[in-house]
């Protein structure tokens, strides 16, 4: 299925290579294996020639009986047949061994190159390209390409054997050879017609099966509901219906597939009849010898099957080439970041950030920031608030140097951000994203990720500095607990805690937090906030806040609207102004306040007396 829809799934970094470029590129990968390739084709040719002269030897042997020949002639023929058997077997043995190494080596090289390219792309690359699709280029496309190359060497050896055989046949009798050749189009044409029908019925079959699988997926996912409401029987009936339909549709496909080889065999049977007939006539007319006739009979089905495989192979070959093309496109993908220098970064940055008339848009015609200016002092904690699309995370991403901006300057400690060595710069950033990501391994490995040299003692100390290490009790093995793939064995809250620990260990100059919106139990929440407080006290912090407590702990709140700073100040000042921030508060943060919690029962229970639209009042909460 994946193959069928491939063509529809173009990515923006895909490019069209000319055939010449493509072959040249493939050639470059194989350049290292020139000798091996020569050996592969040499062996393939030797094996095919041996295979093709086998019927000649057998026919000669049968012909020799008639002349009551010496035993030495027979021994010679038997010896010759043995040689062809051995050459064919060992030729193929050597060919396949070498091919596995050469092709395996090329595939490995392609995978390494493709991964190196992928991991070095900007994050903007991953905004538009799902990582799953990139993964499939690195593993599956390379695999498919390798398979095609291997198949090519098989096909070439088969075709070589056909050509050798045809040459031998022509040298014996041209007329009979033409008859044999004239029959081939029927076989090849027949197999092509079948491939057409097979494709249609296979698609229908796959669709019907898809419906069954969807049905099962839904039933299994919803089984708890079905059981709660005792709906098993109704669900079963629906399943039974699609399952039976799928059986019927797939039987049609089965009918077509079951017919292919019988029909080809029937055609071959007729061909045998034709050759026996014309051959016998030629023998009786004394234009060919009996053993030549026998040679032709032996050859009837020898060279059709290579043609049948070839017709199937051509479309597969195209797919293999486009697989290679996709891998090359990934290897050749370019970054948009434009680092002008590779200045080593100071031992430790102070964390002063200055935006000067910065302009930026994810797409050229949709600006997000226009002439954006902002100064952030070393050690300052700044929270950005605003509606979706106001530009909060854009500011954070520009500081992380994940994107290139189009105009203006962005200075860190007074130096142009473009002039830094990127890796060295990022080592001074601590980034926690909205859905914290962990790598499979232990909790300890994950905390250590940004600073591989950290000692166990350091990690223990940091882990115990939050909530007296209370959170470790909830893990099965404390710091040595396995987090599972992508951290799946930990709860969202625990993942956040681990990410914050990672930053605490790293002690970055600049801390960038895109706060998670998921709801977390109040106990873990309290510990997350403790960890946050600690980080805020150590670094310049850029906070994209979703929690009231985080906003309130910032030194300065910047209210963004369509990429412009429209208000700035701390919570109490801004609330007092009663402007945009107060409105945002009422929209996003009101329900996190103490007065909301304290008044919930009064507002919502007992027949929900509070009329629609009347909201719980905004209490001046600060400072008490």
């Amino acid at each position, binding site marked *: 299925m994946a193959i069928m829809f491939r063509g529809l799934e173009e990515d923006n970094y895909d490019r069209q290579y000319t055939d010449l470029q493509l072959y040249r590129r493939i050639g470059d990968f194989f350049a290292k294996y020139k000798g091996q390739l020569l050996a592969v084709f040499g062996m393939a040719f030797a094996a095919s020639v041996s295979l093709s002269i086998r019927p000649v030897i057998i026919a000669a042997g049968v012909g020799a009986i008639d002349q009551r020949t010496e035993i030495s002639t*027979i021994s010679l023929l038997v010896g010759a047949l043995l040689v062809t*058997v051995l050459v064919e*077997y060992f030729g193929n043995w050597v060919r396949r061994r070498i091919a*596995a190494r050469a092709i*395996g080596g090329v*595939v*490995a090289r392609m*995978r*390494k190159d493709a*991964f190196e390219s992928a991991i070095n*792309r900007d*994050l903007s690359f991953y905004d538009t390209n799902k990582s799953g699709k*990139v*993964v499939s280029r*690195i*593993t599956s496309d390379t695999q498919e390409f390798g398979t095609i190359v291997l198949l090519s060497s098989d096909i070439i050896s088969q075709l070589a054997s056909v050509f050798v055989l045809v040459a031998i046949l022509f040298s014996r009798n041209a007329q009979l050879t033409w008859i044999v050749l004239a029959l081939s189009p029927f076989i090849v044409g027949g197999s092509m017609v079948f491939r057409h029908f097979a494709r249609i019925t296979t698609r229908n079959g796959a669709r019907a099966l898809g419906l069954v699988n969807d049905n099962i997926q*839904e039933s299994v*996912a919803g089984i*708890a509901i079905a*059981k*709660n*409401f*005792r709906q098993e029987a109704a669900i079963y009936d629906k*399943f039974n219906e699609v399952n*039976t339909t799928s059986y019927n549709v*797939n*039987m049609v496909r*089965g009918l077509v597939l*079951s017919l292919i*080889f019988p*029909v080809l065999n*029937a055609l071959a*049977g007729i061909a*045998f*009849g034709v050759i*026996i*007939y014309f051959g016998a006539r030629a*023998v009786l007319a004394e234009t060919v010898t*009996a053993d030549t006739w*026998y040679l032709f009979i032996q050859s009837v089905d020898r060279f059709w099957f290579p043609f049948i495989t070839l017709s199937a192979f051509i479309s597969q070959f195209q797919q293999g080439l486009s697989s290679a093309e996709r891998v090359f496109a990934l290897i050749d993908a370019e970054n948009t970041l434009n680092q002008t220098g590779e200045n080593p970064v100071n031992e430790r940055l102070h964390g002063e950030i200055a935006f000067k008339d910065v302009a930026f848009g994810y797409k050229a015609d949709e600006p997000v920031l226009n002439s954006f200016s902002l100064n952030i002092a070393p050690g300052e*904690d700044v929270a950005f608030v605003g509606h979706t699309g106001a530009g909060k995370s854009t500011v954070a991403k520009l500081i*992380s140097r994940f994107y290139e901006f189009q105009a203006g300057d962005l200075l860190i400690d007074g130096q142009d951000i473009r002039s830094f060595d990127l890796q*060295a710069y990022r080592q001074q*950033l601590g980034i926690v994203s909205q859905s914290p990501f962990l*790598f499979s391994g232990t909790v300890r490995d994950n905390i250590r*990720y*940004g600073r591989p040299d950290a000692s166990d003692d350091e990690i223990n100390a940091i882990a115990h500095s939050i909530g007296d290490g*209370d959170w470790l009790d909830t893990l099965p093995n404390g710091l040595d607990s396995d987090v599972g793939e992508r951290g799946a064995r930990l709860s969202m*809250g625990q993942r956040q805690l681990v990410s914050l620990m990672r930053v605490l260990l790293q002690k970055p100059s600049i801390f960038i937090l895109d706060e998670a919106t998921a709801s977390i139990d*109040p106990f873990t929440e*309290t510990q997350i906030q403790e960890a946050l407080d600690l980080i*805020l006290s150590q670094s310049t912090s850029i906070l994209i806040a979703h929690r009231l407590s985080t906003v309130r*702990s910032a*030194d300065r709140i910047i209210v963004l609207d369509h990429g412009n700073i429209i208000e700035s100040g701390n919570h109490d000042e801004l609330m007092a102004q009663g402007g945009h921030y107060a409105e945002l508060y009422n929209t996003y943060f009101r*329900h996190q306040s103490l007065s909301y919690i304290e008044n*919930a*029962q009064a507002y919502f229970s007992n027949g929900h007396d509070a009329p629609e639209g009347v*909201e719980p009042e905004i209490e001046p909460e*600060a*400072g008490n």
Partner: protein
Amino acid sequence: MSSEFVVQSAYNKQPSDWRSPAQYVFSHIRRHPFVAIMLMIGAISNAALAAALFYFIGTAYNAVIDWQRGQITQEDAFAVVIGIVTAVVISQLIRATLMFVRNYAAEMYGQRVERDVRDELYSNLLGKSMDFHDKRPIGEIMARVTNDVRELNLMMNPGLNLIFGSGMFLIMPLLFTPFISWQLTLTPLLFMIGYITAQYQYVSSLHRVAQDVRQSFGEMNASLAESLDGVEIVKGAAQEDSEINKFNKLVDYVYGKFVEQGDIEALYLPLLIWGIALVAGFAHSLYLANVGSILPGDVVRFMGYLSLFGFPVFVSQFAFSQVALGYASAKRIVSILNTETTLDQNKGGHNEPMAGAITFDGVSFHYDEGKVIIHDVSFNVEPGQTIAIVGQTGAGKSTLTKLINRTYDVTEGSIAIDGINVKNWDMQSLRSQISIIEQDVFLFSRTIAENIAFGVEGATPEDIERAAKMAQAHDFITSFPEGYQTVIGQRGVTLSGGQRQRLAIARAFLTDPKILILDDSTSAIDSATEDKIQRAIWTAAEGRTTVLITHRLSQIRWADHIVVIKKGYVVAQGKHEDLLQSSEAYRRIFARYENPTRAAAGAPAPQAGD
């Protein structure tokens, strides 16, 4: 075997055998004896007629030789040739027909086995209780019901079809050769022994390395996917080089396994054995013909018979691996079928309207020996009360609530509803009076109205709308162009967690359970949504016993009873005021709210407004 659901299907009349994978597959094969007979007839006659072709060719050859030796006239020889041509064409057309019968019968087997096994597995899964389903990820069950069932199909066709069909090609030369000369049977006999031994060794050595190849490829893929999914962290921590090193090592390992497999495949011995058999047969038959004990046409026949071995030599590698895959799948399927589930319908148990009092008395629970999930939990809920269960993810909160409607059974202690042990309630009566709204609300790909009325017979559109209004869902439902008739999942209609939750609450208003269990872990992005969710839940809680698993401080604050759970133990319980006294952890939560700026103490910059 106990089951919560039993289906009356045709496959129950002749139950399949679950004792072992082989017996299981065989019991499905036995179900269609007619198809088996067709398959056998097709396979045997196909091979026999393939051999007959060479018999005919030999006859024609002999006739021509006889004419050359002057033993018959040209007309006679030509007449024989015409007869042979007719025989060849007719026999090969019959052969093609029978080959089709064989293929079609095998295909029928494949499809029927797939259909039947899927049906059997599906109804078996429906009958299994939730303790089975909750322990298994959906992906794993899907893999059994889709991939493994498919493998059984392919095991029949092409797998067993080719093994049986090509097996006949191994036997035919042995049956036809004695008609030429019994001495000549030596070569096919030795070939068979050599072939079977070599094939067996090849399949087993390839099986091992193929597994390594798959596994190493899987590891590479998983590690790659993780590195790229976490690319932001990789870059943020400047760890690109170490990721590249890690990946390169895995690639090299895959390469090594690939070459290993290539070497084994290159060495495919049956091919050489076949070649040697051709040479030996050639020498032997030439010798016999030369001394005049067989005719030249017999050599033609014999070499033709030996060429039949090519079919098993070329296809068996593929066919055996197909059967091996199918066998492994059958093993997994049988293991699912045989998994015992503990609960049954308990028809005739207690069957009365509930008042809604819940009593936990020393309840412990574990799935597997040794890994206890709930430890000695006791509490009491009066009818109509609201109880909040609080604790970290994985503490055992939802397991605790699932013991109430017997999704699982307690291992120790007891749970009573209205004073009657849940085990003594009729399952139908118990579950229909308890509603569970899970954290991830599942909706069927049907209309919104059907989802709300799921499991409620005869709900009118008015009932549905009233329930939706009480659940604060009416507004967002009517914002869709098709309103209540909107099909979920179609044309990009997706619902947020909060909206799904409110649909489930609307469903609860219709079913009107006496006990409502609500896993409320949805977060609201904005305050207006929060208002709606709160209002819906408070309304739903009225007049029924409500068990809330919640992170919402406002609900915890006002619950009649709060149970704090940590790693399966109750660490504190009581009302809000009691907990402020008794639990340090609980006090900390509210302390932050009392004095929020304390949080930022220690920050270098001065706090305005302090």
